[in-house]
């Protein structure tokens, strides 16, 4: 099965238009009256400053987007870099920000439609504020419906709208400036008012991120992506500054402040009613297209959160017929309708949206620094912030975002604060035990490379046991790993966890469940017997807890374990988890070596003919180490085969597939520290790599394969190839990963820093 790559078909111009389409939106048609009221003509400076802050964010986002082109944008980067605590805050923050922005756009739409078009179309006039709210509600419902039912929209329509808007604004600026605007008192309310206004108008700058979410489709992303982002920020910034200049220079501040359709009222002065009508039509188009983009972006944030298990995946169901994430779209639509209906006020809506995005971008800047310092293997951005600008850009950007946040209206700060606190509570109550990802902050603080070493010199293998039938083999394999180290001090720790549901208290449940406790004791007694036979030091831990995954992780940390070995039934779960509710978090977060074993038929469990997949993956040598440990401890004859697959045809340097394979195996032997004569090698040449590996796997008793994906920056636990082999091969399959990829806690990192 080959998977067609998503064609990279967006050039600079297309990416730029996409960004511009969301940037030249509703804000500029609605905000001039609010901005002029707050800061007079000096609000030009506010727009300019907002543009600069966005420019810094665009530079940081360009690096992150080319490093991790994934749906969910800023949320995704922050969650990967700073972990689910901040992920939860930013996820909810962006979602709230987008719904507040949609409500803001829709009320702007109502204002331009009724009092605006009402000047020309009789029945639209005279409906007052109720009318505006109703129009906003109807349009919001309609847009939600359009996206729910997946009504086809085309790029061509989008381009027409963008071109129309650019044309209108350029005409407005051109004719307005020729008309000779006269600015009165430039800064009537003082600089603090100008600073506060940055927060108000920032909502006009939240669109450019859409380019980041298309990163995978952009041609030559190292050049085109940052350029398109920067251009999509600079162009509208200049336009906004111009619009404020013309507006405040044409109408008095009082008239402007009281206008619901400021751009049209200004246009009337020098373009007549035809010009005003054109502006109204433009504003209607702009508000609708901006709200449309916001609703769809919100659904993407939901999707990305669901994928990271920070949010219930139920929301992300794709509709069978419409092929839209209909629940996420409906939820966003409903909250937008509620926000419109309760009458928060158009200014407050805009400011809360700005607030949430400033929080987001502040954390995006932190994420860049953390990722650069932690430097996980999978992070290899095509565009890196040039060294003259790093780390100035993220630091300055962070400070600027925080400074604006502090300047904002207290009511807005309160609402924004509530949303942030909600994110925190959500993390504590829901996401903490479920989230797949982990923070890389520890990695960033720690000095230099941070391979986990055993401080006490005692090699410890943690083995969760739950099933008497598999217990013996798991312990035997763990003992093999322990024996490979100094066997005097190495030990195996067998753990069993009784899971108790959330509703019942731990003690209460246990008294009713004596049978379970008894079973736990039996399992662990049995483990001791096995350990005696195997001649390995064993300790047992009997634990009662809410969640087996976190209990195991706790044991790993308490014991300072070097290796955790788990059994797996061999079936991937469909939705909520990748490999299983306990396996996912343990493999995903354990700070030590982690091994997952699917047991095949007896007499071949880590024995007999062992195949090692010798590939280029970072963890393949770990799999080889496991294989040699098993082979050394096995009672019966074992053989080790290094298996490698190459595609037919000579490469650029003229090496034949066999030569390439041999070279790779040689390198592999060195990386894995194998000795000559210990192994055989086998190279196959084929078009169908995955199929050949699966076929070959069925000839061996045990297959050892290293993780192909890294836990820190992706969701798969081991990678799709190891998981497929595990699922489809009848023999024993050992999936292994080393400690490099797992992140350490901030506390560990600081300790390490202090020690060094």
């Amino acid at each position, binding site marked *: 099965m080959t998977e*067609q790559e998503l064609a990279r078909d967006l050039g600079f111009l297309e990416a730029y238009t996409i960004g511009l389409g969301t940037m030249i939106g509703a804000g500029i048609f609605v905000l001039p009256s609010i901005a002029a009221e707050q800061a007079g003509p000096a609000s030009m400076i506010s727009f300019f400053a907002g543009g600069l802050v966005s420019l810094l964010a665009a530079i940081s986002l360009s690096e992150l987007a080319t490093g991790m082109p994934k749906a969910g944008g800023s949320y995704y980067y922050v969650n990967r870099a700073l972990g689910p605590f901040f992920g939860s805050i930013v996820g909810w923050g962006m979602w709230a920000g987008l719904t507040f922005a949609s409500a803001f756009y829709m009320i702007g739409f109502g204002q331009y439609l009724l009092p605006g078009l009402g000047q020309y179309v009789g029945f639209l006039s005279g409906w007052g504020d109720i009318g505006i709210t109703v129009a906003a509600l109807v349009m919001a419902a309609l847009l939600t419906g359009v996206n729910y*039912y997946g009504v086809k929209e085309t790029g061509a329509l*989008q381009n027409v709208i963008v071109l129309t808007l650019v044309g209108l604004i350029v005409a407005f600026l051109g004719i307005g400036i020729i008309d000779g605007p006269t600015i009165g008192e430039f800064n009537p309310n003082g600089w603090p008012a100008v600073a506060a206004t940055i927060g108000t108008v920032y909502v006009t700058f939240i669109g450019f991120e859409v380019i980041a979410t298309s990163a995978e489709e952009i041609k030559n992303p190292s050049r085109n992506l940052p350029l398109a982002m920067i251009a999509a920020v600079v162009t509208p910034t200049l336009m906004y500054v111009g619009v404020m200049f013309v507006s405040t220079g044409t109408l008095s501040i009082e008239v402007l402040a009281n206008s619901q359709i400021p751009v049209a009222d200004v246009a009337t002065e020098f373009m007549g009613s035809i010009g005003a009508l054109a502006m109204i039509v433009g504003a209607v188009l702009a508000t609708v297209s901006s709200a449309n983009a916001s609703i*769809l972006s919100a659904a993407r944030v939901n999707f990305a959160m669901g994928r990271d298990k920070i949010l219930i995946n139920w929301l992300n169901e794709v509709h069978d*017929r419409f*092929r839209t*994430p209909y629940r996420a779209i409906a939820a966003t639509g409903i909250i937008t309708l509620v926000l419109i209906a309760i009458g928060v006020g158009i200014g407050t809506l805009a400011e809360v949206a700005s607030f949430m995005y400033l929080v987001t971008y502040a954390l995006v800047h932190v994420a860049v620094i953390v990722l650069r310092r932690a430097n996980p293997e999978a992070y290899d951005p095509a565009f890196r912030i040039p060294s003259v600008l790093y780390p100035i850009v993220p630091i300055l950007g962070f400070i600027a975002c925080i400074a604006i946040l502090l300047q904002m209206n207290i009511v807005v700060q309160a609402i924004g604060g509530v949303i942030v606190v909600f994110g925190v509570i959500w993390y504590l109550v829901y996401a903490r035990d479920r989230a797949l990802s982990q923070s890389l902050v520890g990695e960033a603080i720690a000095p230099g490379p941070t391979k986990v070493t055993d401080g006490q010199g005692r090699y410890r293998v943690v083995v969760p046991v739950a099933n008497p039938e598999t217990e013996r083999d798991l312990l035997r394999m763990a003992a093999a790993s322990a024996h490979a180290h100094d066997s005097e001090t190495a030990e195996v720790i067998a753990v069993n966890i009784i899971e108790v549901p959330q509703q019942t208290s731990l003690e209460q449940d246990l008294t009713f469940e004596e049978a379970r406790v008894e079973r736990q004791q039996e399992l662990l007694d049995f483990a001791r017997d096995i350990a005696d036979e195997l001649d390995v030091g064993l300790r047992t831990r009997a634990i009662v807890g809410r969640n087996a995954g976190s209990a195991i992780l706790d044991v790993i940390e308490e014991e300072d374990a070097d290796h955790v070995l788990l059994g797996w039934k061999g079936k991937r779960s469909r939705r909520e988890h990748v490999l299983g509710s306990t396996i996912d978090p343990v493999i995903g977060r354990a700070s030590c070596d982690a091994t997952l074993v699917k047991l095949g038929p007896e007499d071949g469990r880590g024995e007999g003919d062992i195949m090692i997949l010798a590939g280029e993956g970072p963890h393949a040598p770990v799999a080889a180490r496991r294989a040699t440990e098993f082979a050394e401890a096995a009672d019966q004859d074992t053989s080790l085969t290094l298996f490698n697959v190459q595609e037919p045809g000579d490469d650029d340097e003229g090496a034949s597939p066999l030569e390439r394979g041999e070279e790779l195996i040689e390198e592999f032997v060195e990386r894995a520290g194998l000795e000559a004569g210990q192994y055989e090698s086998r190279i196959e040449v084929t078009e169908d790599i995955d199929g050949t590996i699966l076929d070959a796997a069925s000839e061996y008793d045990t297959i050892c394969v290293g993780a192909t994906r890294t836990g820190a920056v992706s969701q798969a636990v081991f990678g799709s190839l190891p998981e497929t082999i595990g699922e489809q091969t009848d023999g024993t399959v050992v999936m292994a990963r080393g400690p490099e990829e797992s992140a350490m806690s901030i506390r560990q990192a600081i300790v390490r820093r202090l020690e060094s």
Partner: protein
Amino acid sequence: MFTHVLVPVASPEDAEATMRAVRPYLESVGGNVTVINVVEKAGGAPDKASVEQREEYAHEIFDSARGVFEDSNITVTTDIRYGTDVAETIIETAHDIDASAIVFTPRGGSRWVRLLTGDVALSLVSESDLPVITLPNND
């Protein structure tokens, strides 16, 4: 006609129904089947669902398609394709893989829904230069 058919599918239910319908025909001639799901791109406008979400959904669809052929020795090949025009992408894919025919089952739906979301079946039938076979949906 059934030596190598292309089956475009849109949902797990659709995949199951179509694969069930096509199975006896394939078995009678020992044919192959390629199942594709087309991810519709808006070509510049924002897509309704993110591409990654659609890809995840496509894998769900393929699982359900393979499920029907689990106990059969006919190979099921799967592929995700991307395009702004679903019918056109299907026809292009059919040529790419030298398919002998394109096979689907009707999915019903009111005239309104088809008007709003596009009628892929109609475009397939009217635009294809390869045989297009509609099999009855027996569920």
